[in-house]
C-alpha cells in the first residue's frame, strides 16, 4: 500500500469549499469560483490516482482513530477508484450546468444549494474511498444529512413533505447500518473491507446471518432504491434538476449501490452469500424491482418522475448483476454504474434544460420541442437508446455483460428480466423522442430556440461520454474486471 495524502485531499477539497462558499454568499461569482475550484481539485486528485492503483497496490491516507480501535481510514482500491472517478468527473460537469441552471431559473438560497452540493460530493468521495465499515458509516450518514437541504430546496409544502419522507427513509437506513456494522464487527472481529469478504460461513447461525444481510440490504437498499425501499426517490424529484441529475442519478443512489458492492463483495463475500442463499434473496428483490419500476415508469406523465422510476429500475440492474455472483455479472453491474450515470445524467440535464427554458415538465407537453432544441433532444435520444440497451451507446455493453453473467451463473430468469426490461425502457423513452422530433410543436416553442450554452454544453459533454464509453470502455471495464477477479479469486489478480 502506498501512503499518500491524495485520497484525503480529494475528500476534503469539496468539504473545505463549504465554509468558503458560505462566507462569500454576497458575491455569487466568487462563490461559484470556489465551487469550480473544488470540483477541479477533486477531479484532478482522483485522476492522479489512476496510475498508482492497480490490483495489488492501494493508496491509503492516514490512520486517525475515529472510534477506539477503528481508524477513520481512506483507502483507494480499484472499486473505490471506480466510483470516485464517476462522482468527481460528473460533479465537474454538473457544476457548470448547475451554475447555468440556478441563474437561469433564479433559484433562491443559492448559497445553501452550493454548500450542500459540495457536502454531498465530499461525502460521496468519502464513501468511495472508505477503507472500513465505520468510515463508510460516517460518510454515509453525512451524505444523508447533506442531501436534506437539497430535497427541501424549494421550501414548498410539497418539498417539505418530501423532505420528511426522505429523512424517514434515510434515518431508518442509518439505524439499520449502525446495527449491521456493529454486529459485523462483533462477529468478524474487524471492520476492514476485504475483497472476498470478512464474514466466513459459520461465524453466525444461518438465521442470524440472514438477518444481518437483511439489515445491510435495508441500510444500503434505501439509497439504492430497492423496492419496497424506493419511496423517497420519486418524492425527492422536487429538488432542482441538477440535484436530481447528479445526486439522484449518480452520487446518492450510486452510494447505495456501491454499498451493495461493498457488502456483497467485501463484507460477506461470494462464498458466504452462496452458502446461506443470500444471493437468491437479492436476485428476487432486484429482479422484481426492475420489472415493477419499469412498469410504473410507463405510467408517469411527469418527465422527472418517469426518469426517477427508470433510475429505480436501472439501479436494480446493478444490484442484480452483483447478486448473480459471477465474474461477468459483477463486472457488468459495476460497468452499469458508470454507464447508467452518464446516460441518466444526460436525461436529467435535458429535462432540466427543458424546464428552465420552456417551463415544461410533462411528457405530454413535449410535442415538437426537438425542433427548438435539437442538441438537447439529440442528447436525450442518445441517453434513451443507451438505457434501452441499443448500440452504439454504452448501455449496450453493460447489459451484454450482465446477460453473460446471468448465463455464467447458470440462471436464465435474470436474463429474461433484463431483456424484458430493455423493451419496457424503449416503451417509455422512445415516445418522448418521437414526440419531440415528429410531432408538430406547440405555439411559441419553435421561436424559443436552443437553451443557453451553459446548459447545452454540459449536456453534449455527458452525452458524448455515453458514446465514448461505448467505443473506449477499457479504463472502466478493466477496473471492473479486476475488482471482479479480486472478489471471486483467481484471474489475473
Amino acid at each position: 500500500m502506498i501512503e499518500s495524502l491524495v485520497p484525503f485531499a480529494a475528500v476534503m477539497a469539496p468539504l473545505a469549499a463549504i465554509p468558503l462558499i458560505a462566507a462569500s454568499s454576497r458575491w455569487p461569482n466568487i462563490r461559484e469560483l470556489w465551487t469550480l475550484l473544488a470540483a477541479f481539485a477533486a477531479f484532478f486528485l482522483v485522476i492522479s490516482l489512476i496510475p498508482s492503483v492497480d490490483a495489488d497496490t492501494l493508496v491509503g491516507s492516514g490512520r486517525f482513530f475515529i472510534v477506539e480501535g477503528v481508524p477513520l481510514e481512506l483507502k483507494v482500491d480499484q472499486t473505490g477508484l471506480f466510483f470516485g472517478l464517476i462522482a468527481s468527473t460528473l460533479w465537474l460537469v454538473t457544476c457548470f450546468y448547475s451554475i447555468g441552471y440556478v441563474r437561469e431559473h433564479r433559484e433562491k438560497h443559492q448559497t445553501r444549494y452550493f454548500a450542500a452540493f459540495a457536502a454531498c460530493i465530499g461525502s460521496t468521495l468519502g464513501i468511495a474511498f472508505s477503507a472500513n465499515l465505520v468510515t463508510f458509516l460516517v460518510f454515509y450518514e453525512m451524505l444523508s444529512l447533506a442531501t436534506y437541504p437539497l430535497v427541501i430546496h424549494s421550501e414548498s409544502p410539497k418539498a417539505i413533505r418530501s423532505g420528511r419522507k426522505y429523512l424517514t427513509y434515510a434515518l431508518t437506513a442509518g439505524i439499520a447500518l449502525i446495527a449491521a456494522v456493529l454486529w459485523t464487527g462483533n462477529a468478524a472481529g474487524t471492520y476492514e473491507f476485504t475483497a472476498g469478504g470478512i464474514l466466513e460461513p459459520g461465524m453466525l447461525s444461518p438465521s442470524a446471518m440472514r438477518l444481518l444481510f437483511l439489515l445491510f440490504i435495508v441500510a444500503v437498499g434505501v439509497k439504492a432504491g430497492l423496492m419496497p425501499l424506493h419511496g423517497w426517490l420519486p418524492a425527492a424529484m422536487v429538488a432542482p434538476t441538477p440535484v436530481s441529475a447528479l445526486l439522484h442519478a449518480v452520487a446518492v443512489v450510486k452510494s447505495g449501490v456501491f454499498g451493495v458492492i461493498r457488502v456483497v463483495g467485501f463484507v460477506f463475500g461470494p462464498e458466504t452469500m452462496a452458502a446461506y442463499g443470500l444471493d437468491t434473496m437479492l436476485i428476487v428483490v432486484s429482479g422484481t424491482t426492475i420489472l415493477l419500476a419499469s412498469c410504473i415508469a410507463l405510467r408517469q406523465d411527469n418527465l422527472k418522475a418517469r426518469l426517477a422510476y427508470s433510475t429505480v429500475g436501472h439501479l436494480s440492474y446493478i444490484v442484480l448483476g452483483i447478486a448473480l455472483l459471477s465474474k461477468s455479472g459483477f463486472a457488468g453491474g459495476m460497468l452499469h454504474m458508470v454507464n447508467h450515470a452518464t446516460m441518466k445524467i444526460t436525461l436529467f440535464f435535458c429535462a432540466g434544460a427543458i424546464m428552465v427554458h420552456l417551463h415544461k415538465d410533462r411528457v405530454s407537453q413535449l410535442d415538437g420541442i426537438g425542433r427548438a432544441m435539437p442538441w438537447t433532444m439529440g442528447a436525450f435520444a442518445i441517453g434513451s437508446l443507451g438505457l434501452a440497451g441499443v448500440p452504439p451507446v454504452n448501455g449496450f455493453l453493460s447489459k451484454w455483460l450482465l446477460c453473460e453473467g446471468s448465463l455464467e451463473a447458470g440462471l436464465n430468469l435474470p436474463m429474461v428480466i433484463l431483456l424484458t426490461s430493455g423493451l419496457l425502457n424503449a416503451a417509455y423513452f422512445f415516445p418522448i423522442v418521437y414526440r419531440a422530433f415528429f410531432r408538430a410543436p406547440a405555439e411559441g416553442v419553435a421561436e424559443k430556440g436552443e437553451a443557453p450554452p451553459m446548459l447545452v454544453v454540459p449536456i453534449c459533454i455527458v452525452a458524448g461520454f455515453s458514446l465514448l464509453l461505448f467505443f473506449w470502455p477499457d479504463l472502466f471495464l478493466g477496473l471492473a474486471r479486476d475488482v471482479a477477479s479480486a472478489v471471486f479469486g483467481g484471474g489475473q489478480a
Partner: protein
Amino acid sequence: MRPDLLNHAPILIILLFLGGAMVAVLAGLLQRRLAQPWAVGITGSATLLSLFGLARVLQEGALRYQLGGWRAPIGIELIYDPLSAFLVVVICAVSLLVLIHGRRIVPEEIPGREVPFFAVALMLIGGLCGIVLTGDLFNLYVFIEIVSLSSYALLGIGTKRSPLSAFRYLVMGTTAGSFYLLGLALIFMRTGTLNMTDLAEILPFVSGQVPVLVGLAFILVGLSLKAAIFPLHGWLPDAYTDGCSTATALIAPLGTKTALYAILRFVFFVLAPAYGAGAAPIGTIVAYAGAAAIVWGSFMAMSQKELKRMLAYSSVAQVGYIALGIGLGSRYGLIGAVLHILNHACMKACLFLVTGNLRRNVGHSYLPNLDASVRREMPWSMAAFCVAAISMIGLPPTAGFFSKWYLALGTVEAGQWPLLVALLVSTLLNGVYFFRIFEQVYLKPAREGASGREARGEAPLSMLVPTLIFAVLLLILGIGNVYIVTTFLEPIWAGVL
C-alpha cells in the same frame, strides 16, 4: 503554578467555589453588578486549576487526598484520578460558559436577585465537583445534598410556577437523600466503613447478608431518584421547565449527570469486586430502566410544544443512555456512559443556552410560534442549535454519535438485542422532534408583524460566544473521542479489573 499547590488541587477546586460563594454574598451586597464577574472569575480560575491538576494527574498518576491529615479509612478521602480530574474540568468549563452566558439574561429574567443567584450557583458547582472527587460515601451524601439544595433554590427563582415545581423536586430529592442515608446506615452497621476503597475490600465478605443487600438497594434507588432514572424521573420535567434560563442551563447538563457519575463510581468501584463487574442483577435492571427511559422520554419529548419542556423530556431519555451504559457493566458500557455524560453536558448546555437566547430576543420558546424570522434574526444561534440537535440525534461526525456507538457496541457485545433496538429507535425519535424544529425555524414562512414586537436581532456577544463554543466543542469532542477514551478511561478500566 507552584507544584506544591497542585498537591492540593482537588480540595482547592472545591474550596474556590465554596469560598467564592461566601465572598460573593459579602461583596455582592455592596455592588450588585459585581456578582456575575466574580462568579465567572472564580469559575475561570477553578477551570485553570483543574486543567493544571489534570495535566499533573496524567503525568504522575492518581492522587489520593486525605482531608485533615486523617488517613484514609478514618478520614475523608478525595480521589483525584484521570477520570475524576477530567470530569472536574468538564464541570468547571461547562459552568464557566454558562455563567458567562448569564451576564445579560440573569438580570433580565430575575431582576434584583443576581447576588444570591450567582452565590448559590457557585455553591452548586462546588458541590458538583465534590461529588465527582469524593472517595467517601457520607461525604458524597453531603455534596449531593449541597447540589440538591442549591438546585432547589436556583430552580425556585423564575416564573410563577417555579416555586411549586421546585418544591416538588425538593420533596423527591429529600426522599432520595433519605433513602441513600438509610441504605448507608445499613451498610455502615455491617462493615463499619464509609470509604469507597475500603468498602470495596470489605464488601466481598458480607456480600450475601440481607441488611447489606437491602442497604445497597436503598442506596441505588436513592441515587437513581437523584439521577432521574426512569421510572423515578417524575420531578424532572416540571423543575427544568419552570426554572430561569441560566439555572436550567447549569443544572440540566450537570445535575443529573453527576448523580449518574456517583452511581457509576459506586457500581464499578465499590460493587464490582464483590458482585463482579456490573453487579449482574442490578446491572440488568438499571440497563433496562435506561432503555425504557430512552423510549418513553423520546415519545414524551415528541408531544411537547414548549421547547424547554421538550428538552427536559429529552434529558430523561439521555439519562437513560447513561444508565444503560452503567447497567451493561462492561468496558464499552463504561466508555459509552462516561462519554455520554460529557457529550450530553455540552449538547444540553448548548440547547438550553439557545433557548435562553430565544427567550430573550424572541420573547418565547413556544415551538408552534417559531418561524423563519427567528433564523433570519439569529442565524448563529440557530446554527449552534442545529449542531447540538444533530448531535442529540446522534449523527456523525458530532459527539453524540460516538457515545451512542460505544453504547451500541456494548449491547451487541453483551447480546442484549432489546437494548440495541431501544438505542437505535431513539435515534429516529430524536430525529422526529428535532427535524420538526428545523422545519419550523428554517422553512415556515414568517408571519409579518404578527408578533407585534420589534426585532432584537442576534443575541449579544456575551450570550452568543458561549453558545457557539459549545457547538464547536461538540464537533471537536466527536473527532477526538478516541483520545478521551485512551487517555482518561483506559487507566480507570485497568483499575476496575
